[in-house]
């Protein structure tokens, strides 16, 4: 039996001026099941709220309609008042007779009639309201950080410093990411390794951080506050609990002509190796593909020399489970490669020789040539013959902003690092000349444009506005055929070295990875934020956050800023034992659900799963949909999809809405 109370607010003159509130109050009293109806000048004031509380008790009300301002304004206020009177907050609804009525209409008659209609709709709705409880989700107060680039490192350190445990998973043998490969960094030109290495060491030694390198995410289960992660620890063939990083194995390994990934194939490494001297952890790994023992059963030189017996040829992949409440994804980027045969859908650059000429290199390779710890110890020389290049042509937007190659976005950082490259080159090769082909210069950060100006004004880089159509070799030189659209002429430069500012792409395996986590990605496979402006850190899956270049091209300052933001989100989440959520979530009527799974597919948040119903003998009776309350965001899309009307949304049930519709017009 419904006992509804209606409380009509004048809002001073705001409502009262157009809506005849006392008439409305009287007419509302006559509505079916309304047992009490009253008006007051300011309902939200303390005395106003008191009227509601008193009435609930006095008239034993079980449904409240406040006819006042927008629910977005005072719904919380009145629901709070209702709770104080001992009623479930979700039995209170607001009829918006101010923003949607008195303020937008002049005609008193019309406004008054409409106000009554709005009240009637809410009275009918509230009768169907059910008491709901806010949802409480327990929180595992630790976090997982995937990816150990500068973004992942920053996020992990911030969370760990905030007192929460962090599990970090990095797929390569060392953390550091791309930043570890850089020479000096814009806009200040400080040495990349000098600022990164201490942070890497901190990660390894922090008491709150558990580091898994050479490891990947095998599986993710659960939802916000309660994720269960399976980590695959790939076989290193070196026992990291025994190895002390002495390096004797590396020194003695006879297999030494293997291209070094860290040095972008400009240098070599051994079959047992650490990617670079400052690697964290400083524990070698055996490259099975190239190890003589694995190839033909003989060698084991490393094992012989390791006096701690850390080499373990019989090692296999290990699987480890970790429970966390939140996840930060910081898997970074890949560089576009101009090769002809590409693993993705993008086309390579035939006009630039498909990467065949050793003196046409990409930007990361140039970073390695500039780096004091690089394959040339910081001397800029040509890969083909070791000569010091006197003319270097830099080409921007290679792959980026290029519809014909399938990549329409701007990679954002290449304008800046190209300017940096011209400066560093000039600092090393004083008589050298740098030419840059560009379309636009995008240097919109703090001190960025000044930086580019310096490259032009002080380090005398010649900037040519235009793209390059072709590069070909003519004897000792690379002929670069470009244009300067500012003078409207073709430009031909005979270069010793050509550096391509190739596009920043997402990690190659992003799609299966994102699917594993249940997070979205865009058409280029960058991971998607929940809202481009207001939720740039969140993903659509609650509890999973993004940091760094996995979301979009970013430079270090931005990657670090986003990482700290993600850390603060994680710390916010982990500062509670429990999460509270509004109870507007979908639920399934298991008896009528036919298990068609349409709702599963419609849910953007992957909140719906399959559930097997078994009888007492443990036999499968049927499969039905099951909504994970922790994940459901309450959009209701599934409700309108379900053909058997078996799924409904608490707070916005079919019954409630039909009641509104039925009472809408008299």
């Amino acid at each position, binding site marked *: 039996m419904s006992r509804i109370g209606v409380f009509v607010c004048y809002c001073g003159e705001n409502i009262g001026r157009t809506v005849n509130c006392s008439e409305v109050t009287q007419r509302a009293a006559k509505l079916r099941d309304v047992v009490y109806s009253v008006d007051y000048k300011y309902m939200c004031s303390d005395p106003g709220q008191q009227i509601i509380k008193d009435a609930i008790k006095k008239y034993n009300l079980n449904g409240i309609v406040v006819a006042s301002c927008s629910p977005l304004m005072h719904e919380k206020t009145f629901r709070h008042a209702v709770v104080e009177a001992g009623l479930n907050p979700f039995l209170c609804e607001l009829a918006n007779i101010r923003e949607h009525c008195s303020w937008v209409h002049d005609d008193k008659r019309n406004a008054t009639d409409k106000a009554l209609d709005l009240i009637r709709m809410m009275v009918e709705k509230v009768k169907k309201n059910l008491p709901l409880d806010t949802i409480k989700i327990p929180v595992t107060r630790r976090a997982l950080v995937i990816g150990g680039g500068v973004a992942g490192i920053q996020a992990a350190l911030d969370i760990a410093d905030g007192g929460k445990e962090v599990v970090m998973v990095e797929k390569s043998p060392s953390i550091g990411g791309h930043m570890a490969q850089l020479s000096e960094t814009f806009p200040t030109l400080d040495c990349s390794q000098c600022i990164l290495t201490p942070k890497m060491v901190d990660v390894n030694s922090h008491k709150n951080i558990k580091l898994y390198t050479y490891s990947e995410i095998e599986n993710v289960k659960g939802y916000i506050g309660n994720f269960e992660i399976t980590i695959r620890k790939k076989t290193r063939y070196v026992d990291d609990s025994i190895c002390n990083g002495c390096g004797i194995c590396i020194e003695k390994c006879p297999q030494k002509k293997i291209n070094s990934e860290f040095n972008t194939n400009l240098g070599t490494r051994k079959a047992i190796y650490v990617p670079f001297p400052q690697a964290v952890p400083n524990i070698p790994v055996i490259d099975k593909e190239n190890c003589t023992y694995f190839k033909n059963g003989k060698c084991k030189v490393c094992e012989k020399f390791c006096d701690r017996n850390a080499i373990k040829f019989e090692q296999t992949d290990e699987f480890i489970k970790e429970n966390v409440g939140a996840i930060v994804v910081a898997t970074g980027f890949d560089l576009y490669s101009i090769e002809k045969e590409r693993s993705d859908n993008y086309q390579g650059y035939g006009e630039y020789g498909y990467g065949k000429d050793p003196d046409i290199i990409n930007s990361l390779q140039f970073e390695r040539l500039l780096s004091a710890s690089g394959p040339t110890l910081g001397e800029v020389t040509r890969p083909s013959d070791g000569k010091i290049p006197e003319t270097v042509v830099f080409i921007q937007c290679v792959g980026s*902003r290029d519809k*014909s190659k399938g990549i329409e976005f701007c990679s954002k950082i290449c304008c800046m690092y190209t300017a940096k490259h011209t400066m560093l080159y000039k600092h090393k090769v004083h008589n050298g000349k740098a030419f840059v082909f560009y379309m636009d210069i995008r240097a919109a950060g703090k001190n960025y444009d000044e930086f580019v100006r310096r490259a032009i004004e002080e380090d005398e880089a010649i900037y040519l*506005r*235009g*793209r390059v159509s072709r590069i070909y070799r003519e004897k000792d030189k690379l002929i670069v055929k470009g*244009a*300067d*659209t500012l003078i*409207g002429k*073709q430009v031909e430069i005979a270069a010793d070295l050509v550096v391509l500012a190739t596009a920043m792409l997402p990690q190659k395996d992003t799609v299966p990875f994102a699917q594993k986590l249940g997070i979205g990605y865009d058409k280029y496979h960058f991971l998607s934020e929940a809202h481009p402006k207001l939720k740039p850190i969140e993903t659509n899956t609650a509890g999973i956050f993004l940091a760094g270049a996995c979301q979009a091209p970013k430079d270090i300052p931005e990657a670090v800023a986003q990482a700290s933001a993600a850390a603060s989100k994680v710390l916010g989440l982990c500062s509670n034992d429990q999460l509270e959520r509004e109870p507007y979530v979908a639920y399934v009527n298991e008896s009528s659900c036919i298990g068609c799974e349409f709702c599963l597919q419609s849910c953007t948040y992957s909140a719906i799963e399959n559930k097997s119903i078994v009888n007492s003998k443990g036999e499968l009776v049927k499969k039905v949909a099951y909504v994970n309350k922790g994940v459901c965001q309450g959009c209701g899309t599934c409700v309108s999809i379900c053909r058997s009307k078996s799924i409904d949304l608490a707070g916005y049930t079919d019954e409630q809405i039909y009641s509104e519709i039925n009472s809408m017009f008299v």
Partner: protein
Amino acid sequence: MKRKLETQITLNTLIDSFSNEIKTLSKVNAYECYQCGKCTAGCSVGDFLEETPNQMMRLIQLNLRDEALNSKTPFLCATCNTCTARCPMDIDIAKVMETIRILSEKEKKKNVKEVSKFSKIFLDSIKNHGRLFELGLTARFNIENKTPFKDSELAPSLIFKGKLSLLPQKIKNRKRIKKIFDNSINEKKGVE
């Protein structure tokens, strides 16, 4: 730059008529061009141009129809398709050149008269014989172009080598070629 620099143009009638015209005729939306200059960079005849290919695209963007139709560029274009092949925006620039050239020809704008004349004589030749009569073509071109001795050193050995026949090869069904010419060129719609 050989050309007299006109430092000012007046864009008072920025209606999209020309860019729309090009769009209908060549299916190219000129506004997709972001003026990167890659077409210019690779243009085979770049050394000989006044307006570069990207500037031709710009003229369309600004709806400067007269300037475009009076440009020599479309006539000097060797239709090599390099620009089209490499344009990062997938714009068929060669097709645009061809379209402008046809418009210019139709409206008797300023153009490169040798090229224009050559085309006419070439087409006349095949219209008459069904196949190209190279000796006749060269001779007539040189006469009309007032360069009677151009390439004359080549002719004797060509004839000697049996490469240049003195009489045209004719096809049997000459009506067929005539129909094709009449039906496509005399059609009122013109270009398309």
